[in-house]
């Protein structure tokens, strides 16, 4: 697209119409429904969006109205965003797995007038908090099922509204009216409000303009050479900035096809069927795939296991070098090629990564081993560091400069500086306008000269790559003065497949102790193979043999920590295994599955106390929330395990 065009097509609705004119026959969206991939091309998408926009006007929607979008990744919901933008309204995507109260907060704060939702589940949630939402006028739903007997005075089936819109558009006057409204959109208008899940406090509404999102989308497209021929799978929450940029903004700018899986449970199968060329996933997804592979390999025959182990060894030696384009001896190349035919190719195919030309992991630190594993079997996995406030891109790893422990160089046209405290600050075209209705918070985060404080502490290494250590407010000090970066320690623990989640304590204490959450899949499988009988997660978590296994992992982590002079003081001396999985429904994790440290400290205060007063067991009694909102109790005595920390002469003095 020429620069002139870029200046004219400065909003997503305009770009969609542009796509319909220039590549109307190319697929825009696919959705697997009734077992078949149904697809829509750009022309059909544009028609649907116009009809829905006309329908919304008919309902009384106006410029600057907020329209909530709630549901899993579905073509109709993405187009609802575009339809809202067409009439100058501001879409507000919400996390569809939020409970009603969380939803009520955002809906109320954003003064939402219309909600476009997926199904009965979401309708029920909104109806249950309707009293708090005086601004809400109508709810539109996509899936009819179960809603037949509901009072329809404020409910409307999305397809009915689209039909009304189509009928209205038959009139020339209203078509012209809609086109005029679309043309009125400017690049500096607010395109979307994305509520950040917030590891602390209430969510904040990040306002991003079309200019922000388009600039950011173009940075990514140019960086990785994306074209209309690319394919991606959209399966991450629509309210998350990553999905909004990758599955919406970039898809519209580059014109590539976005594929929506049949259901959350079928994503692995669906990804295999589509074979995306461009993928994006938090580390968790890659961890899960690898865990599944390893668990299955444990059950495989000896010959298969030998082949697998042998070629993984070869891949570890040469795989990353071959991918990075380094010099590799011919014999090693041939050996790797054989491995590719026997092991790596089939593995990539299993994962649905056969066609991937570039994949990103972000959101949290990825384990060096996991990262290297995927690269060694030929998946061009890279890291990026991003924020909602930046419209994603802050740093990116350029091809050929991939390191597992850094997040790469500043993205094109983004500038990064380090505050005296070590906090990372950035500026660039993607910098957000402000938090919706919260100028105080905006002022806290945005500096006078237009830089944004990330709240992360980091530094540049010798090659100019940024390395992130931890959240600035989380980095603590032990009483003897040693550094205590909790996330750094937790991530090291979490890289073991048996450990799903970890929470480390140590700020203003004399030693580090932690909570461990075991992974039910990995440990459950181990239990099955070793005849460890258990009736529940709680029972498995309390098994002495499980404790033994986890203690070994902790000791290994301690060895790794001891190897880094700054971290030697932060070795783990005591741990316990929690009797329940940390869960977002209980408020222990954010909706993006990050640990909410302060909340956990408060909730499990008795256990934290037991970790530090030397007692051998801690007692717990706590409430848990089931998926449907009912409550239950977990109680019991939790064993606390001491870990021997070998004193390292010389280092103690340094700390």
């Amino acid at each position, binding site marked *: 697209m020429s620069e002139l065009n870029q200046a004219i097509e400065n909003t997503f609705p305009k770009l969609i119409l542009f796509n319909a004119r220039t590549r109307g026959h190319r697929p825009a969206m696919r959705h697997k*429904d009734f*077992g078949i991939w149904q697809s829509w091309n750009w022309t059909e998408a544009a028609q649907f969006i116009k009809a829905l926009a006309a329908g919304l006007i008919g309902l009384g929607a106006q410029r600057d109205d907020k329209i909530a979008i709630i549901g899993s990744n579905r073509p109709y919901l993405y187009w609802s965003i575009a339809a809202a933008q067409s009439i100058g309204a501001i879409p507000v995507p919400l996390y569809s797995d939020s409970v009603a109260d969380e939803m009520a907060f955002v809906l109320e704060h954003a003064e939402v007038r219309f909600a476009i939702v997926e199904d009965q589940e979401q309708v029920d949630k909104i109806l249950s908090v309707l009293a708090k939402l005086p601004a809400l006028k109508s709810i539109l739903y996509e899936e009819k*099922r*179960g809603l037949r007997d509901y009072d329809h005075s404020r409910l409307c089936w999305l397809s009915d509204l689209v039909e009304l819109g189509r009928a209205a558009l038959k009139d020339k006057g209203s078509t012209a009216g809609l086109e005029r409204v679309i043309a009125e959109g400017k690049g500096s208008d607010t395109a979307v409000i994305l509520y950040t899940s917030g590891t602390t406090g209430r969510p904040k509404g990040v306002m991003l303009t079309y200019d922000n999102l388009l600039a950011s989308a173009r940075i990514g497209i140019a960086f990785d050479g994306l074209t209309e021929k690319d394919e991606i799978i959209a399966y991450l929450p629509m309210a998350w900035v990553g999905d909004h940029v990758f599955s919406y903004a970039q898809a519209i700018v580059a014109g590539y096809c976005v594929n929506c899986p*049949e259901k959350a*449970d*079928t994503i692995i199968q669906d990804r295999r069927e589509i074979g995306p060329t461009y993928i994006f996933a938090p580390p968790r997804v890659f961890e899960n795939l690898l865990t599944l592979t390893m668990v299955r390999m444990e059950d495989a025959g000896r010959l298969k296991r030998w082949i697998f182990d042998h070629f993984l060894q070869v891949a570890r030696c040469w795989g990353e070098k071959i991918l990075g384009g380094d010099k590799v001896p011919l014999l090693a190349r041939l050996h790797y090629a054989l491995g590719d035919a026997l092991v790596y190719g089939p593995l990539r195919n299993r994962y649905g990564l056969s066609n991937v030309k570039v994949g990103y992991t972000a959101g949290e630190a990825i384990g060096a081993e996991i990262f290297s594993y995927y690269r060694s079997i030929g998946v061009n996995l890279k890291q990026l560091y991003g924020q909602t406030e930046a419209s994603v891109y802050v740093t990116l790893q350029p091809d050929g400069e991939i390191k597992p422990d850094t997040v790469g160089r500043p993205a094109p046209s983004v500038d990064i500086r380090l505050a005296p405290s070590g906090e990372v600050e950035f500026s660039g075209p993607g910098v957000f306008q402000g938090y919706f209705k919260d100028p105080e918070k905006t002022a806290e985060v945005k500096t006078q000269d237009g830089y944004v404080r990330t709240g992360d502490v980091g530094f540049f290494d010798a090659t100019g790559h940024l390395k992130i250590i931890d959240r600035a407010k989380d980095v603590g000090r032990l009483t003897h003065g040693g550094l205590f970066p909790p996330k750094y320690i937790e991530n090291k623990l979490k890289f073991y497949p048996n450990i799903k989640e970890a929470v480390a304590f140590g700020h203003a204490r004399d030693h580090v102790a932690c909570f461990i959450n075991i992974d039910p899949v990995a440990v459950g499988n181990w239990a099955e193979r070793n005849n460890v009988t258990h009736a529940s997660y709680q029972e498995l978590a309390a098994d002495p043999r499980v404790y033994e296994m986890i203690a070994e992992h902790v000791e290994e982590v301690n060895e790794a920590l001891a190897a880094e002079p700054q971290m030697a003081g932060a070795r783990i001396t005591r741990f316990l295994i929690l009797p329940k999985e940390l869960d977002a429904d209980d408020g222990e994790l954010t909706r993006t599955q990050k640990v909410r440290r302060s909340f956990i400290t408060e909730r499990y205060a008795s256990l934290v106390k037991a970790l530090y007063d030397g007692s051998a067991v801690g007692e717990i009694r706590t409430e848990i929330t089931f998926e449907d909102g009912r409550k239950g109790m977990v109680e019991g005595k939790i064993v606390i395990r001491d870990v021997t920390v070998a004193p390292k002469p010389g280092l103690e003095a340094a700390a």
Partner: protein
Amino acid sequence: MTRSTGDVILNVENVSLRFGGVKAVTDISFDIRKGEIRAIIGPNGAGKTSMLNVINGVYHPQKGTITFKGRVRKAMQPYQAAKSGIARTFQNVALFKGMSTLDNIMSGRYLRMRSNFLWQLFYLGPARDEEIAHRRKVEEIIDFLEIQHVRKVPVGKLPYGLQKRVELGRALAMEPELLLLDEPMAGMNLEEKEDMSRYILDVNHEFGTTIALIEHDMGVVMDLSDRVVVLDYGRKIADGTPSEVKANHAVLAAYLGVAHQEKSR
């Protein structure tokens, strides 16, 4: 519930069933109206499953008549019952364990397949069109019951709760007018029970299917059903709306363990 129920679709009149000297069902009469959810409850051994077996022709009662859609049948065979529009699920799941979810549900379409064997053998002409039409119907059911993720998994490998759902799917594939569910929620945890209740209500609402169900969970019965018939020792002791039945003394005596020690959740 605002749903209105229509005419009588099934009428059971003075039915008695004996196995040698054992009286399974004695002189029972009740009716099921079109579009309703009719629960059959009673303590263990009350004759509930026998009653279902009588309705779909597995057992032939020594006395009494069954009238389904106005046609009186005395000794109906199960396949005739199926042909006339009665489908059922079983207390102990009865699926083809080695076959996939898709194939199991497809087997429910068997009665509706018309094209001849030769066409089917070569997957040609009418057989092909027919297969596609049936597959579409099956996919709708898979979507309805939200079992897409196990579409191609052999059902023997599935957890019990899912197997029950697949079995319901197979019964739905027949597009029955009357659906007999024998303890659809036995052995399920609370969450699975809630899901299953949702599906049963949705089947009733969306497809207008008349449902007769046997269930032990009183909460489920009271929430789902329009009318309840209560059996005890093979005899009918009460019949009416859930609230009427709940207040009935004979039911309380039979159920709440005055006469015998039955659980009554």
